[in-house]
Structure formats: C-alpha cells, structure tokens
C-alpha cells in the first residue's frame, strides 16, 4: 500500500509530469485558458492515461516480450493509445452528448499528448508491474490535472492583468509555468528513492 502511496506522491508532486518531467506540455499550454476547459481536459486525460497505461502494459507483457519485439514498443504503444482515444471518443459521443460537449474536443488532442506515451515508456523503464503501471498512470494524470487546473485559474487571473504587450498570451503563460515549476522544486527530496 505504501508503495502505491509513494508512487502517487512522487508522480503528483515530486516528479510532476508537467513541471518536472516536461511531459504533456502542449495541451497544458493549449487548453488552459479557461477553468472549465481545463477540467474537461483533466477528466479526459485521466481516463485515457490510466486506461492506456494498462493497455500498453498488457501489450508489452503479453505480446512484445514473449516475441522479443521490444524495439517495436513505440509503434505498438502509440497504436494502442490512438485506438483507446478514438474508441473513447466515439463511445462518449454516442452515449453521452453532454459528456462529449465537455470532453469531445480534447480527446483527439490526447493522442499527441506525450504524457500518455511517456507513461507507457516510463512504466517499462521502471519495470512496473500491472498494478504499479495503473497507479503510475493514474498518478501521472492526477499530477497533470492538478497543475493544469491550478494553471488555468492563474491564467484567468492574468487575463485581466496589464501584461506588457510582447508578453501577452503564451509568453506570460510560459513564464508563469516557470514560476510554478520553481515552486514545485520545493517538493524535491520528499521521496528518497
């Protein structure tokens, strides 16, 4: 149990995917303008990330490893992810138009969210088992969501600020992310491997 708790603390705070590991930054910059959309994106990412973390693990463990095809991991993982994403999108769109309104436009973006593939690859690198992979995926998504939501709330406040002309928009967002990452350095050392 503590092991899973440690994985969670580590992925959410200490080695936050966005601010420390630099994974998933494009959607982080792209869909953080409004709090509502950030929530939608967080939900969608959490779902897909956890699911694809599990699916990638299964593909690796039961297909690539037995056949000695580890070098095909990238292509098979990305395939798994693309399919999980697209399948989720179609199902959500049909079964819950309401949810689709919230999540729909974000789902395709997730395929190219490198956090998703990153989780799958890091699971390999860290030699995680099934449950560990699932928790790692979930933790990564939770960390992503936490920071994304905080960031979007901050951006909403910046929107009203008298930011110097050249810094309006993405430049100040970048700098804000930098200061966030600065603050997150405070967590370093919390988990001593």
């Amino acid at each position, binding site marked *: 149990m503590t092991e899973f708790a440690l994985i969670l603390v580590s992925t959410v705070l200490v080695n936050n995917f966005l601010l420390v590991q630099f994974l998933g930054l494009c959607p982080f910059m792209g*869909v953080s*303008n409004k709090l509502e959309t950030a929530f939608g994106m967080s939900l969608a990412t959490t779902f897909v990330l956890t699911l694809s973390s599990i699916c990638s693990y299964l593909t690796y463990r039961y297909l690539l490893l037995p056949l000695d095809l580890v070098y*095909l991991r990238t292509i098979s993982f990305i395939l798994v992810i693309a*399919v999980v994403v697209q399948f989720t999108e179609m199902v959500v769109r*049909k079964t819950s138009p309401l949810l689709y309104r919230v999540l729909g*436009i974000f789902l395709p973006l997730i395929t190219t969210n490198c956090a998703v593939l990153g989780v799958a690859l890091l699971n390999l690198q860290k030699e995680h088992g099934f449950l560990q992979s699932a928790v790692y995926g979930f933790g990564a998504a939770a960390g992503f969501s936490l920071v994304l939501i905080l960031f979007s709330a901050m951006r909403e406040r910046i929107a009203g600020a008298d930011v110097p002309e050249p810094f309006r928009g993405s430049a100040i967002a970048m700098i804000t992310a930098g200061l966030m990452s600065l603050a997150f350095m405070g967590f370093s050392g919390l988990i001593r491997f």
Partner: protein
Amino acid sequence: MSMVLTAVLALMGLAIVFGAILGFASERFKVEGDPIVDQIDALLPQTQCGQCGHPGCRPYAEAIAEGEPHNHCPPGGEATIVALSELLGREILELDEEHGEEKPRTVAVIREAECIGCTKCIQACPVDAILGAAKMMHTVIESECTGCDLCVEPCPVDCIDMVEIPPTTRSWHYDLPGRNRQLIATDLRGSVGA
C-alpha cells in the same frame, strides 16, 4: 528474416484487431450534425452587412467553422472576436482592417422630404426595416434597423443618412474611469455657472 516476419505478423495482428474495433465502433456509434455553426452564428452581431465578405452572418459562421479567420466582422468588433476565440479555442486576433473598422452603432434615417419612393432601399435592406411603397415616402423602423448601411448606396438621391444612436438616460452609463481623462481634468465651471 524470421525476426522481420514475427514483427510484421505480430503488429499486423494487433493492427487488424484494432482496425476492426474502430471500424465496428464507427458504425455502431455513428452520429451526425455539427452544432458549432449555430454557436458561432449566435455570437455574430446579425447586422447582416456583408463586410465579412459573406452574404450575411450565417454564411460567415459557416465559413468560420470551416476555418476562415474569425476577425472579419467589423460590426461585432473586438468583443465578438474575443467571444469567438473563446468558443473556438483560437488565438485572439485584431480586426482585419481590410473588412472595415469597428464603429459606434448607427441607424439609417431617410430625409423624408427628399425621398422619391423608388423602393431601392427596401430591396437593399436585409431585415426589412424600411417601410414604404412605390412612389411613396419611405421611413426606417428605427428599432429594427441594424445599421448595416446597405440602403445608403442604392438610393439614387442620396437621402439616407447613417446617424449614431443618441444616448438616453436609460441607455447611458458611466464609462471606465480614466477613459476620458482630459474631460475629467477640464474645469467645467463655465457650463455650471448658469
């Protein structure tokens, strides 16, 4: 060679399974319709002036949905561009000046004495805001006029003016502080000392 073969077979298997799942899902979970045009149209000012290069607001809404830049509507101006940016998740742009500039809201007024009753303005008006019959004097229904000024040009005797809507005590409101600094600084003794 066998290495290549297992690789190909394994991935092909995976791909076929996934392809099949997606193909199945695409049929099973099919939906139609694109509500985004309605949402865009709802944000456009409905002046129907054509400055965006489209015959009316809805065609422009369709064009935006297709990817045309969303900064072509002068009557909507900055507010509309911002709203569209938010809706579409696009960057906020400046109004494209080739399409015109943002001006205060106006209405058409026909100088009735000069009107010859040619009905051309009636044909030009996109919202049927002009009343009149052939050879009779025409008038603009002020509350319906969108201020698109499409009726001005066709008038053969140039009797239509676009006038700014004057504020009333009901429509007037305080401006953002600091907008009219000079005014604030001005000593208004003259106007008060009646």
